[in-house]
């Protein structure tokens, strides 16, 4: 179990992390979702030991690891750009840790070869060992980076946007494979990403990093359907968050959220009486294939989105610039207590 308590890190005046409390349980695929610049990578670098926190503690199984040199921490790190050793072959890249680590380095060439081979088979690169790392594709490099980390059997594997450099097709396939590999090894993965789809698909649990803190850490479906903070809701990219005073029909205070798919549109004054209403101007629509997004601007300038599924169209014909009533049942609304 990896535990971070009250971790803070600043660069000059910029606060990257501001008291992060975070737990990655054993044998878990944990996704860490955050916008770019939210401090995700910093968090991983602190855990791996490339940087030290200004305050707070990092521990694995109750043993403190902050302050330890990175090569003694026994933590795997898969870099976004893979960071393969350009002068070594695929097999030598994978064998690097076994051969040269400061603790428990292997001298037995056969054993190194066997374990390298096993790792290559695990990631589906059997027979690529002799190749140079510049002679393989992006997806294969990703696998080499993964094999190189996994072969050392680290206590936890940190993945820094591991799918970011792959094309969409490959990304989908690697998603499944990463989950399968993790399950076979039983080691915890901490997967950092800026994509909510990736985080929700991959994670047994998803944590949202915003404003330098973990704002919520939950199972994907709980996080998606019941975000506890406005920040968490915004990161799902499926919730309109707006000020409660925009609503007609009931007095709501503070910031509230309604999911894109739970809002309806009707002409002004035609909304069902028991629904909450928000007046807004239709801006434009965006056709995405199976779904269509409609964008509205509320009275205070907030942008609102409504999603329509092609199979069940429920929106009337909308005219750009016209004003409409957006409405939703009161049970669709999520209220957040206090400021985030």
């Amino acid at each position, binding site marked *: 179990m990896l535990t971070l308590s009250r971790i803070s890190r600043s660069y000059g005046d910029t606060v990257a992390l501001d008291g992060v409390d975070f737990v990655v349980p054993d044998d878990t695929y944990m996704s860490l979702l955050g916008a770019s610049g939210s401090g995700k990578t910093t968090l991983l670098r602190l855990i791996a030991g490339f940087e030290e926190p200004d305050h707070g503690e990092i521990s694995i199984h109750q043993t403190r690891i902050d302050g330890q040199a990175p090569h003694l921490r026994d933590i795997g790190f898969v*870099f976004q750009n893979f960071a393969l050793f350009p002068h070594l072959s695929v097999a030598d890249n994978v064998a690097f840790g076994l051969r040269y680590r400061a603790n428990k380095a292997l001298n037995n060439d056969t054993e190194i070869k066997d374990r390298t081979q096993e790792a290559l088979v695990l990631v589906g690169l059997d027979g690529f060992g002799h190749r140079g790392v510049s002679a393989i594709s992006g997806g294969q490099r990703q696998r080499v980076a993964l094999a190189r980390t996994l072969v050392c059997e680290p206590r936890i594997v940190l993945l820094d946007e591991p799918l970011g450099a792959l094309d969409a097709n490959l990304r989908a396939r690697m998603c499944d494979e990463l989950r399968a590999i993790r399950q076979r090894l039983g080691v915890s993965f901490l997967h950092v990403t800026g994509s909510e789809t990736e985080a929700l698909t991959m994670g047994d649990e998803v944590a949202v990093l915003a404003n330098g803190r973990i704002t919520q850490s939950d199972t994907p479906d709980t996080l998606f359907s019941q975000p506890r903070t406005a920040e968490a809701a915004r990161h799902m990219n499926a919730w309109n968050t707006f000020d409660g005073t925009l609503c007609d029909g009931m007095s709501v205070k503070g910031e509230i959220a309604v999911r894109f798919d739970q809002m309806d549109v009707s002409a002004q004054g035609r909304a069902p009486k028991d629904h909450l209403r928000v007046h807004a101007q239709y801006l434009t629509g965006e056709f995405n294939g199976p779904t269509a997004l409609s964008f509205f601007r509320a009275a205070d300038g907030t942008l609102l989105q409504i999603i329509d599924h092609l199979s069940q169209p429920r929106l009337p014909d909308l005219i750009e610039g016209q004003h409409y009533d957006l409405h939703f049942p009161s049970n669709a609304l999520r209220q957040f207590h206090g400021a985030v």
Partner: protein
Amino acid sequence: MSAFSTDTLATSAQTAESPALIRERKDRRRALGLLTPGLIWMALFMVLPMVMVVYVSFWTQTTFAVNSELTTASWERFLSSPTYLSAIWTTLRIWLIVLVLTILVGYPVALFIGLFVRNKTIQTALLVACVIPFWTSFLIRVIAWRPMLGTEGAINTILLKLGVISEPLTFLLFSEFSVLVGMTQIYCVFMVGPITFMLGRIDISVIEAARDLGASFGTVFRRIILPLSLPGVMVGSIFVSVMVLGEFATAASLSGRKVNLLGNIIVSQVGSLKWAFAAVAGVVLTIIITAVIALALRLVDLRKEM
């Protein structure tokens, strides 16, 4: 109808040139245009003189003149004279020692600038600082070692004052030692530059990855940093080798005539109008330099590494 139109298309493609072909020819013309000035320059001022030097080395040398009657006399004299053979040996020895010294002194400097200084501006500033000595003339830099190393020079004075020695060290100046010190100082920067460049190109995350896999800094240096910087060492070595092998000024002004390099021989032979003999020494020197560079390129495949 359709058969007819394909026919006309085919014939028109044969008669008129395809755009791809025209473009290819244009590209080739441009490449030739870019090459020509360099080729002419090299032919006139490198290939031709080299051929001349080889030719002159077979001329007949009399006391104050040469004539173009061909003979191997100069070659025989050169290759049978212990003075000249020992000059070859001295040149090679000085070259090797200076090469090793420039690597030993230059590599840590390059390591610091290229890897430990992360700020590009400071990196550039430090590299410029390395070049500042070059703002004075070569000769001044060499001669500046005399007040440093002389019997009443700075080092002897300091050591005497500190009581480390009781009388001045005489081997410091006008010896092989002073030549080595002078050359190392002058040529070190040509080693620092290329190594810094190669080190600066190493992706920091590669080093972090090696650390993360459990390697200590020493191991990371031996297994990652050093191999990745070798092409830089090789380029630096070629720079230093070419310059040191053809050197004569440092030896002339710091050795007190005790160190005779091939370069010094060429200078003195030309001075006494022994053109054929100087040409022999020149050809020998060229062969040595060519061999050294060929060897260096053998060791590291620059095309692959750069």
